[in-house]
Every structure is written in C-alpha cells, then in structure tokens.
C-alpha cells in the first residue's frame, strides 16, 4: 500500500492548511481530495501557476519545464511534487485565493475579436448568466481564466485585462503564436456569438490592497494584461499610490495598446509610464532596452530615497527572473515582489 504523508502549507498571509498526500499523488490532486483548490493550471509542469517552495521534508519533483520553476531554494511545482515524507510548503498565495471546492466553470460568448497591433488580438467575452441570472464569481485584477477552444478539450490560461464588472465582461490580450492552438483559433475562426467554455477565476497574482506603498509594474508584451486590470481598478477606486508602469516589447512593430495606456494616465494622475523597446529602430524616441533595465534605473533612485516599492511582474520567465534578481540585489524585501510568469503553450 502506498504511504501517505502530511502536507502543511503556509500561505503568504501566514495561514496554515494541512492535508494528506500519498506518495503516488501530486500535491494538487491530494489537496483537491481534501476539498482544497490550490492555484494551478496546466497540471503538467509547464505553466508555473502552482509554484511554491518546500521548506522541509523529502519529495520527488517529476518532469517539468525548467523555466516554469521559480529560482528559489526548495522551489517546486506542486502539480509535479510527490512527497516522500511529511513536508512543509510555502505558497505565494493568500488564504483568500485558496478556495474550497472546484473552480467554477461557465459558458461565455464572444463579444468581439479585435486586431490591436503587434500580433495581439483583444478578445472580449461575456459570461452567460445561468437560468437564475447568476454571472458566477467575480475575478480580482491580476487573476486568469482558462479558455477552451470550442469543440475541443484544449484549454489555455490567459490573464484578464479589464477591471471586474457586473456585466460579465472579460477581456484578454492574445498574442498570436505560430502553432499556438488557442491563438490560432482566435486569429482564424473566433467570431462574435461563438460560445467558449471558461474556467476560473484562478491565480494569486493580485494587487495588495490597503497599502500606501509606491507600485512598480513591469510587463513584457501581453504581460501587460493583468497590469491593465490592476491599474484600471486603481483608477476606479481612486487609489493614490505613486505608480510606474514599464511596458516592454522587442521592436516597435510589437507595440500595442498605446492609446489605452494614454487614457489610463489621464485617469491615474500618479501613474508614469515608460514604454521600452529592446531593439528599436533609429526613429525610436523612447526608452531603448528592456523594461527590467528601466525598472532597475528607477529602483536605484527609490532605494536611495528610502522608498521600498511593491513590484508586480508579468511576462516571460527571463523577464521575471531578471527583475527578481534586480530587486534582490538592490535589497528590496522578497515580500515586496509579486510575479506571474507566462509560458507559451
């Protein structure tokens, strides 16, 4: 008979959750049996949504995509972690984002698909109410949904780009990837009125409420989606936190959403934006380099002035790792950094 071990999770807000896990099951499925829904997505070790850090005990970390794994001591992907003894794990989520019971699944319909430049499409869905008019759970800025290609069981996770609302509207920024299954469907087939199964909201990459700290948002490409959701809600709530957005792309041709960013600046007087182009043309007037470079320059000034900003990162693993490293080197506490890494699938 398979041995069973105790798993003790500590959340970011210092709450504890315990459940038992057999040696032949991964942490996510064992938690699910205990009616605990941990943040996760692909369940194949590819997306990084279920990352955490094992602080004590033995475990086997099965095959996974290397860049999905956070570069920290004891870093694990819970969907690929099989305990060999009692273990303790720290998860970068508040207790509020660890739900009981299954994640909600709903049907939505496509409202619009729009080419917004830079090989990015803005997909707008509207959740269809159930017979009772119920629109299902509200998302928080920074969370993601899993979207299913109609007629298949292929799902991909995308961050929400708009602010929570009670009309059931959900916006996503989809970069068209060669051979990307979902993005190809969006690019070639999706049209208004199509129905799309959705699962969520999920994820613990959310804004810290109630602080007066300065906020730094570092986004690579469509990693701007959750930042846009956060900043739009900040504008709606009239948050006064001094904020800077660093939005990076590879070339000018990859730029998108600049008009929306300008509109956001008028609603958030305390927001400054640096658009960063990594390989610009000669005509580029803005910042040349990666958003990490721009962030690093400002962080030096912040630290010199005694300002310890909250840092929100979203983008490919290289960008996230580089930003985390910059923050760590400058002495910014680890707890001030919140990240979401996305990997093409």
């Amino acid at each position, binding site marked *: 008979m398979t041995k069973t071990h105790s798993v003790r999770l500590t959340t970011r807000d210092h709450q504890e959750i315990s459940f038992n896990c057999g040696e032949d099951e991964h942490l996510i499925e064992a938690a699910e049996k205990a009616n605990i829904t941990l943040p996760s997505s692909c369940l194949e070790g590819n997306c990084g949504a279920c990352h955490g850090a094992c602080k004590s005990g033995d475990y086997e970390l099965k095959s996974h995509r290397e860049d999905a794994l956070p570069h920290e001591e004891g870093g694990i992907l819970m969907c690929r972690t099989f305990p060999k003894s009692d273990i303790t794990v720290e998860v970068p989520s508040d*207790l509020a984002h660890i739900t009981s019971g299954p994640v909600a699944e709903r049907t939505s319909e496509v409202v619009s698909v729009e080419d917004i430049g830079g090989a990015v499409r803005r997909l707008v869905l509207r959740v269809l109410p159930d017979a009772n*008019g119920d629109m299902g759970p*509200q998302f*928080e800025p920074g969370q993601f949904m899993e979207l299913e290609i109609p007629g298949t069981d292929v799902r991909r996770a995308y961050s929400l780009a708009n602010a*929570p609302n*009670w009309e059931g509207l959900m916006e996503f920024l989809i970069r068209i990837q060669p051979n990307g299954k979902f993005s190809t469907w969006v690019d070639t087939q999706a049209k208004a009125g199509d129905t799309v199964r959705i699962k969520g909201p999920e994820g613990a990459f959310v804004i810290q409420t109630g*602080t*007066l700290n300065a906020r730094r948002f570092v986004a690579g490409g469509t990693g701007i989606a959750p930042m846009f959701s956060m900043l739009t809600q900040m504008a709606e709530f009239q948050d006064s936190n001094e904020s800077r957005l660093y939005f990076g792309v590879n070339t000018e041709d990859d730029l998108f959403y600049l008009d929306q960013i300008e509109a956001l600046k008028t609603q958030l007087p305390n927001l400054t934006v640096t658009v960063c182009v990594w390989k610009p043309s000669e005509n580029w007037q803005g910042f040349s380099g990666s958003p990490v470079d721009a962030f690093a320059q400002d962080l030096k000034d912040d630290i010199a002035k005694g300002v310890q900003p909250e840092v929100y990162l979203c983008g490919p693993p290289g960008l996230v790792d580089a930003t985390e490293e910059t923050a760590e080197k400058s002495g910014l506490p680890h707890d001030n950094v919140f990240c979401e890494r996305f990997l093409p699938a």
Partner: protein
Amino acid sequence: MFCYQCEQTARTDTSVGCNTERGNCGKDAQTSDLQDLLIYAVKGIAQYNQLARENGKADNEASNFILKAMFTTLTNVNFNAARFTAMLQEASEIRDRVKAAAGDKAASATGPATWVIPSEVGELLAQAEMAAVRSGEAEVGEDIIGLRALILYGAKGVSAYAYHALMLDQQDDDVYAGIEKSLAFLAEEPADIGALVGQALELGNVNLRVMEMLDAGNTGKFGTPEPSAVRVAPTAGKAILVSGHDMADLAALLEQTKDTGINVYTHGEMLPAHSYPELKKYDHLAGNYGGAWQDQQTEFADFPGPILMTSNCIIEPGPSYRSRIFTAGPVGWPGVRHIENHDFSTLIQAAKATPGFAQDGDDKTITIGFGRDAVLGVAGTVVDAVKAGAIKHFFLVGGCDGADSGRNYYSDFVEQTPDDTIILTLGCAKYRFNDQDLGEIGGIPRLLDMGQCNDSYSAVQVAVALAGAFECEVNDLPLSLVVSWFEQKAAAVLLTLLALNIKGIRLGPTLPAFITPAVLDVLVENFDIKANTTPEADLKSILQKAS
C-alpha cells in the same frame, strides 16, 4: 499605534489599549496613526473656524468637513489608509481657507492650527506621536488624558450624529460652534479636571440638540415611526442587503430599485426603516436579514446578493463577499468599491448578476416602531397602569451590541425582568433579545423597540414626558437605564444623559478603558454611574431600590 476608543480594545492586567501592528477592530497601525493625524488637523480647522465665527465669517463647509473627518475615524468606519492621506491634504487646504477668514485673530491660534501638514506619507507618519491620543501623558498624567479622550470620543460621536442629520438636510450653526469649541478646547491641551468635566457636559448638551435635529430629519423626511411587523425571513428573488445607519442612502436605493424586481433587506441598525411610512411604502423593502453588526461576516457571506454598508459598523469583508460589498458615506475598506452621490447603478447591476433567494423562508415577523409618538400616544394608559400597580418599573436596555461573550448579560437581564415591567430598547443591542416574546401589560407590549441608537432622542423625550405626567424629576421615575456601549456614538449619548443629570446609569459590558479609576470616582460621585455586575444582582438591586 495606540487606540483605546472602543469597548473591545486590548486589556491586560497591566495595560489597556491596542498598540501592536493591528488593533482588535482590524485597523492597521498606519491607518490608526493617520486617523490621529487627521484629528489633529481637524482641531486646527476648528481653532480657526471658531475665530472666523467671531468675525461673522464662519465657514460651514469647513464644519461639514469636520463632521465627516471625525466620523471617518470612529470604530469600524474606515480602514482605508489612502482615504486618510487624501483627507489630510483636503484638511490642509480647508484650514488655510478658514485661517484667512479668521483674519488678524488667526495669529492667536497655536498648536494644531500651525502644524505644517506634509504631503508625503512617510513625513506624515513620522509625526504621528505628536498627534497620539496619549501625547503629553508624562506631564499631565493618565486621568487628564482619559478626560481629554472622553471629550474627543464624545465629540467624534456628536460629529457622527450631526453628519447623519446633515444627510437629512439638518444643520445648525450652534452645533457647529459647539463641536468646534470642544476641539479647540482640546487643542489647548487642557489639564484642569473641573474645566474638562464642564466641557464634556457642554458637549453632551450639544449632542442633545443634534439628536433633536436627527429626529426632525428622520421624521421630516420619512414620517413618524409607527408600530410595524417586520418580516425576518427571505422572499424569493434578487436581493440587496443594506447595513449601517444611513436612512437617506436606503431611501435613495429604494427609489432606484423600484420596479426592478429586486428586493431590499435591512440589516443591523437599518431595521427601524420598516417603521417609517415613507420607507415602508415601498413593497420591495422586503424584510430584515440577520442581526447585529458583529455577525456580519457570516451573514453577508450567506446573503445571495450585494451588500451596501452605509455610515458605520463594517468589519473586514471575507473573501467570499468582498467583491459584492459596497461602501457609502464615511465607510471604507481597501479594495472594496465605494459609492458616491447615491449612484447605485453598479450595486443594482450586481444584484441582477447574483442569484438572490431561491425560495421564500418561513413566515416570521418581529414588531418594531415604538418611537416617542407611538409610546406617548398611549401615555395615558401607561400612567394609569403605573398608578394601578400593573406596571412597576421601566427599563431602558439598549445601545450597541458586540462580539464579547459578556454581552449575554443583556439577554439574561431582559429575560429575568418581572412580568410587571416594561422594557424600552434602542440600538443594535436589542438583537440579543428582540425575538423574545415578553407578552403584554394591558395591551401594551412589554418590549418596545424605539429604533436605532440614533433615536436616543425619542427615549429622552419619553422619559421627560413621563416625568411631566408623574410631576416628578426623571431621576425619580421608576426607570432604570441599562446601557450597553461599544463605540463613540455611545460616548456622545452618555455625555448627553450626564448633561441631563440622569443618575444611576448602568454602563457595560465593561467600562471604557479611558475612564481611569479617578475619573470613575468623579462620575460615581456626581452621577452614581455603575458598572455591570450580574443580571440577577443588578436586577435585584434596581427593584429593591425602587420598592
């Protein structure tokens, strides 16, 4: 942070007050410090406006800001640090304006009036100690600090009630002047016990006028409360829950939800809405849901629609309902949507997008609405019943409820009252016993619900009218006050009762932490104020004394 303004403040054998990273109410240290600084800034506005008033140039907009700022710092009102930094900047601008109106006299104001209010948060917080409630204790001692706190917390309560009155279009220059006088008095760091007690009682008189305005505002807008049966079970359909105290918010919401098919429920201190003709006329004011404020985390989580939290008494919203709770007026919680100017469109949208109640609950009602007109309407019967010996005693058991287990005192007390006694109640403390069937005396229910804590004026008027009918002083009536306090509105009402020279009040479940033994001695000596013991002993003592 240091805060000891409410009943649930931390107490150990050797110390009182919340002084860690987070108070027992959930307020974090940063927000607590910003609240102290806002009060300090508001004292400065009061100092200048008092002088401007002497010039005939009083700035009533500044006075209204004082009301809102003070209300915002009450227990369980606003936990949003950003709101306080914004209000501090607003205070800075208003103070400059009022200073100009004070003219040459402005030069005489010192202390808070001359504070240079920084715009940067770090610089603000660095000065928090100056504004702390116990600042200067080393020089003047804890008794003086306690009396200053009594005045400050009383002034917060008076301001909160005056803000409620303002929302009902009632304002009075004398009230503004009275509140500002008390704040300007505190700005001078007074240390004379006699002067402090005198100012506290003067503030109690200001509050009596405020309660009268609030009564006029409510009855003027919504009619005279009348005895009414209130459904305390759900009705199938979409639903909105309204908590807090603000009847003007509720009235606006009822108007905006008319003909939408959405039912509106009251919670906590909004229950008395069902007794006002101009509110109960709306068929979709469907009933009352839940009990007092301290149960909100369970009750709101279970409520199948959005919640509007008006005026005060919010506690940390749980994750399951954080997205569907909305705040209005002085209330705030970080990450919770705030509604300005009665625009409830998003709230209504949320009601449509949430399930509502699937089915009707069991028919169950409670009876409320015994405001002063209803009670005095049967005054003749009551007086005759007293004279005939059918009614031996009246108890006013009311005030705030809270989570403390010691508050069972009030349900036990009411349960043990003899059958020939009448219980008047108000405030949310009544949820401890308002489902008890206490029967009637000669057709008069033994339990008479007079309304919100905001309706204390009604109780005072009834006491005064009974004293008139019996041709005696209020203190000579067969009436005992058993008052349950929690926060600063209750402090204001207590000061009013003392200003009216009401004696023998039983105050519980525990005495305020800022009332030091020496200050308590003063209150006992002058007003025979008593702390709760046990319901049995207190009841026995009251009835023995009466007979």
